[in-house]
């Protein structure tokens, strides 16, 4: 996957240009750029509208929604930050995401390693068992009944529990662990290293790229989740940022400049995160979908 992505940044060789007739290339290039730019407008237009709106006052938005902001109105951001209880929601989102991702990753590696190595009987069946939920009906209703019975409804611990299963992550890990040479197991065992120690001290560092991919995918899923917090968390003090933003929209929906600032506050960390890790994210999502 990485080599495939790197190909794009490879400098264009001169011979490649010469091989195809100059006229054909130019025309084709121009048409390509026109189409791509049309797409860029559709993709960045809504974002630019959001940024522009977040800088305007309510009255100037009402007068002309698309006019460019003439001043930089920071007040919207201050308002959104204070009124939307963002610090609380953001803290909740961070806690849920970090806690669930960490616990999940540790458990998933201890599931994936023995399956990949066939250190347990019927490893193949275990893998199928972990896959099968992807093809079954959604767990939504019985899951809710279960959480209700366990007294974990409207409970942050119960909410984190909902994110401790992710079959696709296990599959990515199983496949990656196959690239770790088995001779390492033998050598470590000869040196008196135990199973637990081997997995935590040697396997974990060696499969770091796969762990990063799975962790990022899992974390994005939790961070952006809307349905589960809507179902399970009724107390406002437990809301993650997604639910908080929807509630904020309910109250300030008509005040677009403030709402736009709130949306931006939530979007900017994601965009920065994405720009730094986009390779991991894209390759992870393709791996997940190709193998899942």
């Amino acid at each position: 996957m990485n080599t495939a992505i790197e190909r794009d940044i490879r400098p264009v060789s001169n011979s490649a240009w010469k091989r195809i007739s100059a006229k054909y290339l130019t025309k084709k290039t121009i048409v390509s750029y026109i189409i791509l730019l049309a797409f860029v407008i559709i993709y960045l237009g809504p974002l630019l509208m959001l940024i522009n709106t977040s800088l305007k006052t309510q009255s100037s938005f009402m007068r002309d929604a698309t006019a460019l902001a003439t001043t930089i109105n920071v007040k919207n951001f201050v308002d959104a930050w204070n009124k939307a209880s963002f610090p609380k929601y953001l803290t909740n989102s961070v806690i849920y995401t970090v806690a669930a991702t960490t616990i999940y990753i540790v458990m998933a590696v201890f599931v994936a390693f023995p399956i990949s190595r066939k250190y347990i009987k019927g490893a193949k069946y275990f893998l199928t068992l972990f896959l099968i939920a992807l093809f079954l009906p959604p767990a939504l209703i019985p899951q809710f009944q279960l959480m209700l019975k366990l007294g974990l409804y409207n409970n942050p611990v119960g909410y984190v529990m909902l994110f401790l299963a992710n079959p696709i992550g296990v599959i990515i890990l199983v496949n990656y662990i196959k690239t770790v040479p088995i001779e390492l197991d033998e050598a470590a065992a000869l040196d008196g290293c135990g199973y637990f120690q081997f997995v935590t001290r040697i396997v974990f560092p060696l499969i770091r790229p796969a762990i990063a991919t799975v962790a990022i995918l899992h974390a994005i899923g939790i961070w952006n989740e809307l349905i589960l917090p809507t179902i399970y968390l009724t107390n406002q003090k437990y809301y993650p940022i997604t639910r908080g933003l929807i509630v904020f929209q309910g109250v300030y929906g008509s005040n677009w400049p403030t709402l736009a600032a709130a949306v931006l506050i939530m979007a900017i960390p994601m965009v920065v995160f994405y720009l730094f890790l986009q390779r991991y994210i894209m390759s992870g999502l393709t791996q997940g979908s190709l193998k899942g």
Partner: protein
Amino acid sequence: MIYHFGRGRARWIPYLLLIPGLFFYILIALGPSLATSVYSFTDANGIANVPVNWIGLDNYKEFLTLGQAARDNYDALGRTLIFCIGVTVFQFGLGLLVAMLLNQRLAGTNFFRIVFFLPVILGVVIQGLIWTLFLYPLGGPVDKVLGALGTHSELLGSQPSEAFVWVIIVQIWANLGITMVIFLAGLQTIPDELVEAARIDGASPWQVFSKITWPLLTPSVNTNLLLNIIGSLQSYQLFLVLIGYRNGTQVLGYMVYAQGFGQTSGGNSNAFRQGYAAATSIILFFVVLIIGLTAQYFLRRREERILG
């Protein structure tokens, strides 16, 4: 494979360490998933400590045959299929187009790819709110463009069938990046030499596409088609953020959620019909299963014909 880390009691350590992951998977995902069919035969309602009664096929009978409610259900099923076709056709087609454009040696391909993939990361809440603003009916950008073309629309607030089309458009906008990245990965496995050799032999761009690129792209074509079909049949989150539970716009996935947990996103009463919702969710499951398996069957046959 031979286990190296001791014998006897030590042999059980891998099993012991696997238990937590297995436990939560069964508790949270597999168990509830299997139990959905059981709940579909009950009158479970989502209130703690209220007994759940077995009512046989009543939920299914009601869903399929009870007057206006059944007609609404069939309408929702129809809309689910229209949503699936609309999203799949355009997301697949445009995703392929963009991927092919970006597979050329153009300057800035990296930038374009990052931009087109961005919505995937932002998630459904931000996607929905950004487009609610972009589709602001009182002088927002889309409204102005329509105005310049001499027409007007309430956009998301207009007739159900039109609002529905806007949700399809946003859904495609939001997920095109995934289709594009999968196609790009597929395109990059096609050797340049093959394409260049064909060009030198005088093949037209269309011939290169239909005789080389398209057949060799079969694995990513299959993946994308199945992902798009199955994903769009189950998807409803953008409906929730963009237009809410509006008559004439519901799809089956949204009905499961609304029947099970109430129609608004803010309500904290959960006295809803979860048994009925489970039945709806089983019906949706069979729709996905039948369409998914049929698609898979034809894609397999095509793959065997092309790749042997």
